[in-house]
Every structure is written in structure tokens, then in C-alpha cells.
């Protein structure tokens, strides 16, 4: 891999703020999202969903629905291949296909309210909707469980009779809702606690929250008569959507093409397939393109929230403020199928600090909620809420400033995380120093019922596989093809890295996100990886182009290619020079077009740290929290497009504020979500949040030629903890439960 040192520190494109390539399409309404698609002969699919949170499906009779005029196809899980015991690696880890399939269409049992049971396609969405009411399903309702600790009890309603607790590579001997137990340990924990001057232990709980992306899930499928399946969809990963769909339908992967439409937000929730296989099956049955669009209540009730959790964190320290030991017990709900986000939760809970000894136990727990999915730093926000709350309490009791306390213990190059890995150069200390030097931290907070909080957070940020190719146009521009669906402006941040490499302007690169037949394999837009990994692919594409262009210049100049060097958008020998555009115009004379291509698979995390400061005011009568001021500080490695980095920090902070104050899944006594609409699931509006100030710290990532670290996820990690600390300083109450909504905070204030 290229070394950062071999490249100029002075950038021409990187660090500037060009407008995004798709800007005009977005503001004119011209950008085509999945719901905007219309194909000839297209029909509309709808899904019948379980009204029960837990029930045996005794029978499904679709005959009356099939007879309704306008209905062209009906399907249930009976139409799909039996996937018992099949495991597939879907890019971000191994997945049990039987579970994935049963989530797409229930198999024998409905496991949460909203679980898909059957589907129809009809000539209009209204007819499809009417047809659903004609499907007769006989249910045998079972007791439901929606709180993680209840689900762990021996006498809890059992979701699956074939799930046995996996613990340290061993399988238990009777089925359980506890799908997995994770355990990490470092040093002698008992000994280390015994040697502590102060130990604080607290329990925490958090409610399930939803990613809340604005665009509902949507997919259109056409199963052609030659057996080829084309899917137009809103997905974070067209290749994983292709693979999941092919596996569930048991067709060869090459028989499926996924065309990614513009995507209206994902935050981790648009990686698993929901509609794609169903639309495909309906299309296979009727021979026409089938479009399926979820309503907002379907999005809430049937797609991935992030887990509710119960956590216990115990941390010890010496009088002079050195951490001695940590112990964490984390139970996260996985929802209806195993494989929640407890793993990263366990890895992140103590990841900001140097712990001489620590122990982490984590539990992946099944309950009657939709299968949980990733949500921006999945699992880390809950864990940070617990750990950072305890860290703040320790600092207070030791009489040490919370930033100084963190600085004394901050993870740095060489720190070994509890789960094993040793950090390379990271920028946590720099974010703390920047927080200390910030205007926000230095300005006193005055006024009654007000408080200031600070908290830090960590997220790995992954590498994984990315491919790209680029065609040099005769006018000196470059057309870039990539496979990473663009959610936050990555078309531009990736194009900028190609432009920098080639020495041309960002505007001279024309990026395009293309389908799975038109670019090499590329993993999901997730893990804050695109600007890092696909950016690395673009850099390698640029190097490939430059190498070929040097050879072409050598042909023109009749010299050895080794004599030609490329510097800042020029090709030159000792006595000749030509601009990139000039040479691009002459390629046809030197053997034809130049196409650069690359595929990369960088290993290991890029390690993103952030620290957030917040001021709040709490109404003593109503317990309503008003956010007065907010500053987010983060190490971006190198900010390719600073506005986009700020956008990620601001967006993540506001999602974190929503999580801290208001957002939650509320379940009724039968396990049904009681607030499945924006009317009762309250996401922040422009009036609920202040201006979010940002400070970008740049500690270059040694594993990227331009020093890039992922930035998208870390910003959601610190906010709930920072808000809880601020609320404490405003009210004297340490909230150990999310959300800190007025009724809950009010109740805590009465104690």
C-alpha cells in the first residue's frame, strides 16, 4: 500500500469544498429514487403483516385474494426454497439464511407485530391493499416478550426452538432466547478492582430506536422469462442485496442484477433485504415488473431498529485518576432473529481508554421485536452511554476535571483494547485537547437549571472491498464508475481523491454509481468506509491511469516511459511537458482509450474518536430539556471535503440528541409497537436543536495515502452520554435510562 509520506502534503483538491456532482438533481426533484421508478407493465406489490407480536401461523388461505380482479400474483414463504441450516457470508459476516428468509416472509411463526406473512401483486396499489384483506390467516397467539431482561428469563416465551446459546465456541444443551454470549477479558480484574481507591458501578437501560431515514424501503423486481432477475432498489449495498436475494431464491448470483437507485438515507438500516426477494417472487409468478413501497408504519414495525439494552458498568480508579479496572455486562436485544449488534457493543464499551484489566460479558437476546439492524456505530452508542456516564461520575468523585481525567487514561498508539487489537496512531487525545481549547468549553455556562456535559466515543470504521474504474475522456475529464451507493456525498469525496491523484479539478471527474454488472465487487456503504476504501480504490485507479498515460506520453515523445513523470496534472521529461488534458486529447494517436481500474481490500479499522460538549436547560416543572449549545469534535484523519465531514458530525449529533431525549419504541401489553408513526415517534426538527458547532481534528491515518479515516458513525456515539451528564449538572439527577423524555426525567427528578 502507498505510504502517506510519499505524497505531497499540500493538496489542490482535497480539503476544498466543491458542490456535489448530484446537487442539481437533488434540489430540482429530478433525482430518481426507487419510488419514482415506473416500468412498462409494472404492477404493485403489498405485504400482509402479522397483527400479533408472537403467534403460530396455522394456515394461510390466499384463494379469495387471488380471485380479486386486478390481482396478478400471491406469494407466501411456501413458494421459497427450504434454506434450513444454510449459512452464507454476506460481506459483513456469516448469516443463517433460514433466519434471513423467515424474516422476509414468516415461516411457521410470526415473531413480531408487522412480520411479513404473505404478499400480493395487483394492477394498482389500492387493489393490492384490498386483496390483503381477503387473505385468511389462522393464528394461534403466543405470549410475547419485548424487554431484554424478561426475554433472558428461564420461563420467558421461547422464540425459536432451534437456537441454543453459543458461548466461547460451545453450544448449550437446551434452546434459549440467549443466542450468544460474548466474553472478553484482559489482566487480573479482581485484583485490579481490589487495588482501586474508588469504584463506581451503575446500571443502565436504553429503549429501541429507529434509524429514521426519510425514504421508506422500496424495491422493484423484474424476473425475465430468460431467468434473469433485475432489481431496482434503495440499498446501502447493491452487491449484498444481490447476494442475499440470490441466496434466498437459490439462483446463481450472476442471474441477478441489482440497479441501485438514489437512496434516501440508510444509517445501517438498508443493508438487509426485506422487499427484494418478495418482489422477485411475485414478478416470477406474474411475469411483470413488481414494485413494492413500504409505508412509514411498515418501516417502523418491520425494519431494523437498533437494540434496546440493559447494561451494568463498573470502573475503578486510583486517587490520582488512573483507571485500574473495568467490568461491563451488556444485554442487547437482537429482535426476532439472532445476530444483533452486541459484538461491537462489547468491543467499544471500554475502547476509549487504557484499562490495565477489564472484563466484558455480552448477550445477544431474542425477543418479539423486528430483527435489529445496524444503526450508525451499531452497539457503540448504548455502551458509551453507560461507560461515559460512569467515567464522568468517577471524575467528579475524584475531583478531577472530566477532560483531564480522560487525558490521563486516553487510548493512544499502542493501547490494547479489551478484545485484543492494538491501536496504531489514533487521534483521541487530540480531540480532547481540541475540546479543552474550544470556545465552548472555555465559556462559562450561567443561569438556573442549566448544565454542561462532555463525553467521548469511538467507532472502528471498516475497510473491506471496493472497486472502481475510470475512462479518460478526450476533453481531459474522467468518468468514474463506482459501486458504492452515495448517501452522504461520497460520489464527490471519492471523485476528489481521483482528481487529486490525477492533478485535475473535482469538476473534471464525473462520478457515477452503477449496477452490479457494471463495476467490480464493492461492499456496503456502511462502516464509514466509502471515503476511505472506495476513495483508496479511486486513488489506485488514478495511479493506474497515470502509469498508462506516462507510457502514452513516452510514445508521443519517443522516449522511455521511465523518463516520464507525472506531477500536479502534468506529464514531463527533462525538456518536455504536457498537461493532463492535452495528453488526454492525443490518446487516440497513441493506441486508443485509457481506462484505469482498481480493486482494494484494506484490512483493519481506521479508528474514529470524537468528543462532544453540550449545554442544556431543564424546565423544573415539566422536565423538558432544551439544548442550548452543542460542539462536536472529531478526528477525521484527513477531511477530504470538510463540509461533508461537518455534515456527518452535525447529522450524527442530532440523531444522538433525538435518541437521548425523545426517541423510543413504546410497546403495549401484547408486544405491539404503540407509536409507529412520526406523529408519536418524535425525531428532532430544526426548532429542537441549536446550531451544531464542529471542530475537525486531523491526525492522518497511516493506512491511507491521504490519511483518511471514516467519519460517518462516530458522531452518534457521544451525544446520549454527554446529554445525560449535562442533565445531571442541570438537575442533580444522573439519568441511567434513555430516552430522557419529560415523563421519565420528571419521575427521576421526584426521587
Amino acid at each position, binding site marked *: 500500500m502507498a505510504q502517506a509520506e510519499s505524497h505531497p502534503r499540500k493538496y489542490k483538491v482535497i480539503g476544498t469544498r466543491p*458542490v*456535489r456532482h448530484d*446537487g*442539481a438533481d*437533488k*434540489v*430540482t*426533484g*429530478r*433525482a*430518481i*429514487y426507487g*419510488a*419514482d421508478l415506473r416500468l412498462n407493465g409494472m404492477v404493485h406489490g403489498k405485504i400482509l403483516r402479522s397483527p400479533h407480536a408472537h403467534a403460530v401461523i396455522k394456515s394461510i388461505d390466499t384463494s379469495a385474494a387471488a380471485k380479486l380482479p386486478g390481482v396478478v400474483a400471491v406469494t407466501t414463504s411456501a413458494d421459497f426454497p427450504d434454506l434450513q441450516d444454510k449459512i452464507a457470508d454476506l460481506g459483513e459476516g456469516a448469516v443463517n439464511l433460514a433466519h434471513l428468509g423467515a424474516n422476509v416472509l414468516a415461516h411457521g411463526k410470526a415473531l413480531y407485530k408487522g412480520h411479513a406473512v404473505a404478499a400480493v401483486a395487483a394492477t394498482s396499489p389500492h387493489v393490492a*391493499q384490498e386483496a390483503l384483506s381477503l387473505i385468511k390467516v389462522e393464528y394461534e397467539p403466543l405470549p410475547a416478550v419485548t424487554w431484554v431482561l424478561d426475554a433472558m428469563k428461564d420461563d420467558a416465551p421461547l422464540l425459536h426452538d432451534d437456537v441454543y446459546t453459543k458461548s466461547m465456541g460451545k453450544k448449550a444443551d437446551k434452546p434459549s432466547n440467549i443466542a450468544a454470549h460474548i466474553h472478553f477479558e484482559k489482566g487480573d480484574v479482581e485484583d485490579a478492582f481490589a487495588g482501586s481507591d474508588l469504584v463506581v458501578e451503575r446500571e443502565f437501560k436504553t429503549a429501541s430506536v429507529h*434509524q*429514521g*431515514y*426519510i*425514504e*421508506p424501503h422500496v424495491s422493484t423486481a423484474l424476473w425475465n422469462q430468460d431467468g434473469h432477475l433485475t432489481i431496482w432498489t434503495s440499498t446501502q449495498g447493491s452487491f449484498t442485496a444481490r447476494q442475499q436475494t440470490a441466496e434466498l431464491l437459490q439462483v446463481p448470483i450472476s442471474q441477478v442484477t441489482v440497479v441501485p437507485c*438514489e*437512496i*434516501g*438515507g440508510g*444509517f445501517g438500516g438498508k443493508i438487509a433485504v426485506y422487499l427484494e426477494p418478495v418482489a422477485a417472487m411475485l414478478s416470477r409468478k406474474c411475469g411483470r415488473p413488481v414494485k413494492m413501497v413500504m409505508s*412509514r*408504519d411498515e418501516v417502523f414495525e418491520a425494519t431494523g431498529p437498533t437494540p434496546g439494552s440493559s447494561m451494568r458498568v463498573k470502573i475503578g480508579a486510583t486517587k490520582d485518576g488512573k483507571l485500574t479496572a473495568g467490568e461491563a455486562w451488556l444485554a442487547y436485544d437482537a429482535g426476532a432473529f439472532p445476530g444483533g449488534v452486541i459484538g461491537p457493543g462489547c468491543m467499544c464499551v471500554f475502547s476509549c481508554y487504557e484499562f490495565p484489566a477489564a472484563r466484558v460479558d455480552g448477550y445477544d437476546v431474542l425477543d418479539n421485536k423486528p430483527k435489529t439492524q445496524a444503526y450508525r456505530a451499531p452497539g457503540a452508542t448504548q455502551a458509551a452511554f453507560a461507560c461515559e456516564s460512569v467515567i464522568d461520575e468517577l471524575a467528579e468523585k475524584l475531583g478531577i476535571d472530566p477532560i483531564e481525567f480522560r487525558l490521563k487514561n486516553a487510548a493512544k498508539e499502542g493501547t490494547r483494547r479489551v478484545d485484543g487489537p492494538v491501536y496504531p496512531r489514533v487521534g483521541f487525545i487530540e480531540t480532547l485537547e481540541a475540546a479543552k481549547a474550544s470556545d465552548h468549553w472555555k465559556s462559562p455556562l450561567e443561569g438556573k437549571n442549566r448544565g454542561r456535559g462532555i463525553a467521548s466515543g469511538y467507532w472502528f470504521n471498516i475497510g473491506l472491498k471496493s472497486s472502481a474504474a475510470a475512462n479518460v475522456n478526450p476533453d481531459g475529464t474522467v468518468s468514474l464508475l463506482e459501486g458504492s451507493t452515495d*448517501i*452522504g456525498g461520497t460520489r464527490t469525496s471519492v471523485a476528489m481523491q481521483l482528481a487529486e491523484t490525477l492533478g485535475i479539478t473535482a469538476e473534471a471527474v464525473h462520478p457515477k454509481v452503477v449496477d452490479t454488472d457494471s463495476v467490480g465487487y464493492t461492499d456496503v456503504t456502511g462502516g464509514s468506509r466509502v471515503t476511505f476504501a472506495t476513495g483508496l480504490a479511486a486513488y489506485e485507479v488514478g495511479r493506474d491511469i497515470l502509469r498508462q498515460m506516462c507510457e502514452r506520453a513516452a510514445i508521443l515523445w519517443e522516449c522511455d516511459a521511465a523518463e516520464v513523470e507525472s506531477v500536479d496534472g502534468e506529464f514531463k521529461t527533462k525538456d518536455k511537458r504536457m498537461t493532463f488534458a492535452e495528453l488526454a486529447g492525443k490518446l487516440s494517436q497513441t493506441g486508443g482509450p485509457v481506462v484505469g481500474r482498481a480493486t482494494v481490500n484494506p484490512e483493519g479499522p481506521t479508528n474514529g474518536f470524537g468528543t462532544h460538549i453540550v449545554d442544556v436547560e431543564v424546565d423544573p*416543572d*415539566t422536565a*423538558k430539556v432544551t439544548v442550548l449549545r452543542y460542539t462536536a469534535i472529531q478526528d477525521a484523519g484527513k477531511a477530504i471535503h470538510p*463540509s461533508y465531514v461537518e*455534515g456527518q458530525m*452535525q*447529522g*450524527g449529533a*442530532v*440523531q444522538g440528541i433525538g435518541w437521548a*431525549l*425523545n426517541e423510543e419504541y*413504546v410497546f403495549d401489553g401484547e408486544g405491539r409497537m*404503540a*407509536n409507529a*408513526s*412520526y*406523529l*408519536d415517534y418524535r*425525531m428532532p*426538527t*430544526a*426548532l429542537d*436543536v441549536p*446550531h451544531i458547532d464542529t471542530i475537525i481534528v486531523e491526525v492522518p491515518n497511516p493506512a491511507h495515502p491521504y490519511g483518511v479515516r471514516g467519519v460517518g458513525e462516530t458522531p452518534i456515539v457521544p451525544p446520549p452520554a454527554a446529554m445525560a451528564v449535562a442533565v445531571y449538572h442541570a438537575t442533580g439527577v444522573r439519568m441511567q435510562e434513555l430516552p430522557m*423524555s*419529560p*415523563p421519565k426525567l*420528571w*419521575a427521576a427528578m421526584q426521587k
Partner: protein
Amino acid sequence: MREQLVFFVNGRRHTVVGGDCFLSLSEFLRERLRLTGTKVVCAEGDCGSCSVLVGRPDGDKLAYRTFDSCIQLLFQLDGAHVVTVEGLRHGDELSRVQAAMVEQHGSQCGYCTPGFVVAMTGLLENCARPDENDWRCGLTGNLCRCTGYVPILAAGRQAAGQPGTSLEALYPSGPMLDEMRRLRGESLAMSDGRRQFASPITLAEAIDFLAEHPQAKLVAGATDVGVQINKRMIAPEVFLDLNRVAELEGIDDDGQTITCGARASWAALHAACADRVPEFAAIVSIFGSPQIRHAGTIGGNIVNASPIADSLPFLFVTESELELAGPQGTRTVNVTDFYHGYRQTDLRPGELLTRVRIPVPDRGQHLALYKVSRRRDLDIATFTAGVLLHVAAGKIVEARVALGAVAPTVVRARRTEAFLRGKPFDEATMQAAGEQAAAEISPISDVRGGADFRLQLTRNVFLRFFHERMQAAA
């Protein structure tokens, strides 16, 4: 009787007959006109992704307001001009709002962007120099999940500082106005064989239609009916559109009483109350988003009979009067006698609410209105209250207390009022009044808050009222 809808979209005239008249505006735009920049996300008027500008005659030109097109039924748009995000460009250039959104990086995933562009355009159309608060309040009807709103607000500020083309310049109203005035004078009705609607222009016609079709669903702003249809809670086959009934229009103020037609929108009511009853104007301003305030009506809020209706504590403590019209003529009912139970009113079959008479509190009276909810704006109340006290020489002469979200209807706390009368206006009295009021109600627990929380809010209201008065006096 006209039997076709006539309206304009982005300057083009459209006529619609048959079943399409019952579509939502958003579905008509997206599916019939293929104007897919208008997005449907929540289908209940919470997110603003479907925002469009609706122009209606106002004097000698069209006044444009932002609406949620997902909860407008197409027949409500008769005689209006709808401008979508696609209609904002002039020639081959972006509008100033569109250009600012690009330059300030106001779009990440972009799904909310057209709605924001429309809402920001609507704000600038009606407010030349918006300040920070205008922007934040003006965009509460639009949810963005990516940006934290920072670059969107920056785009708003940038656009406001640049010269822009008004909608009047983009779409000269002259030719449209003439036809709109003519359309306004014509009654309208339509059936597609299964469903029917009538859109009369006089009260008499409306009452006749209701007498013939007692099952008819009344539609004014449709902020509630639209949601219920989209959520498949109701599927009406007969609609009575009240949007064009002349007798339901208008707001008058004779110095003592504000009389408003039942169809007065929240936006219009806000304008009428801003100086006269600032306490009520403040409640109206957080009643909902601009989109909801432009569409929703006071009549709808009253007749809907929700125990958490934002307007009711105020109407209860002022003892506002409701004018009801029906086949047997017109009668007047005090709003405190109007509700018989949860979602049950005094309206008799065939009766309509036509006017609301609001006695304006005089200077000697202290009025305070409270709404507690999770978010600041566009939110369902957890608790509402109204307190109106007349204090003379330190003694409470008259007291009226109304509480919402604590019972099946908004209620007057009569025993608390009796307790307060004649007592000195001091902290001890108000504290005791809080206890008295809490003893007088038995609220329920739901997703918005627990019973104990509501009881405490009830207690707190009185002390808060006292302290606010003391602060104001100091």
C-alpha cells in the same frame, strides 16, 4: 352545477373528472403528472417531504402557502394553483433557494430536499427578511435526518440575501385569477359511481346536502381526514367539501369579540390574534407546522372533539360561543357545554359548526395557556391548560381553569375555580389550587405520558402561573 375539477399545476391548467378527484394531491402529482420530485414519506403531514405551494386569490394576485400534499384531497384544490419543486426553476437556471441548497451542501441523501426547497421558497415568498427564529419555526414541518439542519438553515440565509424571482413573476396570476374567480362562483359536485363529493358555495346548499347524505364526511383542511384515509382508518364514500362555502369564511373583531368563520385557518387566526390575544397566538404558533397551520381550521379542531385539541383550553376559559346551523335553523352553544364525552359533541344530525365567537379577555384579566409535549413544535400534547384570573386589589374575583389531556374531554376545573374565588392571589393559594385541581381529575397513562406526570403538571401549572405573573409585574 359544475362537474369537473379545474386547477393549475406549475402554470398549466388541468381538468379532472371521476375517481381521480378523490386521490390525494401527492398521488395525483406523482402518478398522473409524473412530477415525482414531490415525495411521500409519512402520509400524515409530519415530515413535509410532499410539500407544495398552493396559490389562491388574495386581492389582485395569488397568495402562496406551503401545504402537505399527501393530506390534501384533490377536490380541495379546485380553483387553486399548485407549484411543485419542478415548477420553481426559471429557464435553465436553479432558483436562489435551489442554488443555495447546492452551494451550502444542504442536501445529503436528498429525499427531504424537494420538500425543504418548497418550504423555504414559501417562507421567502411571505417574509422578505426572515431571522433565525423565522427560519427555524418556518421549517418545523420538514424533517431531515441527515444534516442536523445546519447547512439547510445556512442555505436559507444565503437565499434570503440574494435577489430572487417571486412566484408572481414566474407565474403571472392575471390569466389564472380571472378563471379562479369564475370557478369560485360555481357549485361543484362529482361522482365516480362509488364515491361522491359536493363542494357547495352557500351554507344552505351544504345543509341540504348533509340532510340528504347524513353519512357525508366533512372536509375543510383535511389535516385529520387526510391522515385517517391514508392510514385506512376510514374510507368515506360521500364527502362534503366546505372549502368554498362563503358563510364559513372571514374573521371579524369588534373590539370585544373575535368572530371567526369555522373554516378560518390557523394561519389566519394567528394573524388575527397576534396583537389582541398574544397568549393564544403563541399557542397557535406551536399548534403545528406551517403546512398544518395553512390547512387546518379552527372548526375542524373544535368538531374533532379531541381532549388534547390545542385550541380548547383557551376557548373554554373565555367561554367562547359556537354557532351551529342545521335544517332547523341556527343555535348557539357555549363551548363548555359542547362536549358530551370522548369524541362526542352536541352537534345534531345535519348540523354544522359555522362560526366561533371568542370574547377577548380584557386588561384586568390574567390569561395563561400551557402546552406540554415532547418536542417544541408540531407535536401532540401530553397536557394542556388554560388559566384565566381576574384579580382586583390582590384578591381573585373570577377564576376559570381548563385542563386538557386529563379526561375524555377538555374539562373546566369547577371546584378549583370555586376554591380560588375570593382568595388572595398569592403563592399559598395557588399551591393549594394545584392540589385541588389534581384531586379533581383522574388522567390516564399512555405513550405520551403517565397519569402521575399529568397530575404533577396540573399542580405545577398554578405555581407557574403565579410566578410568571410576579415576574411580569416586576
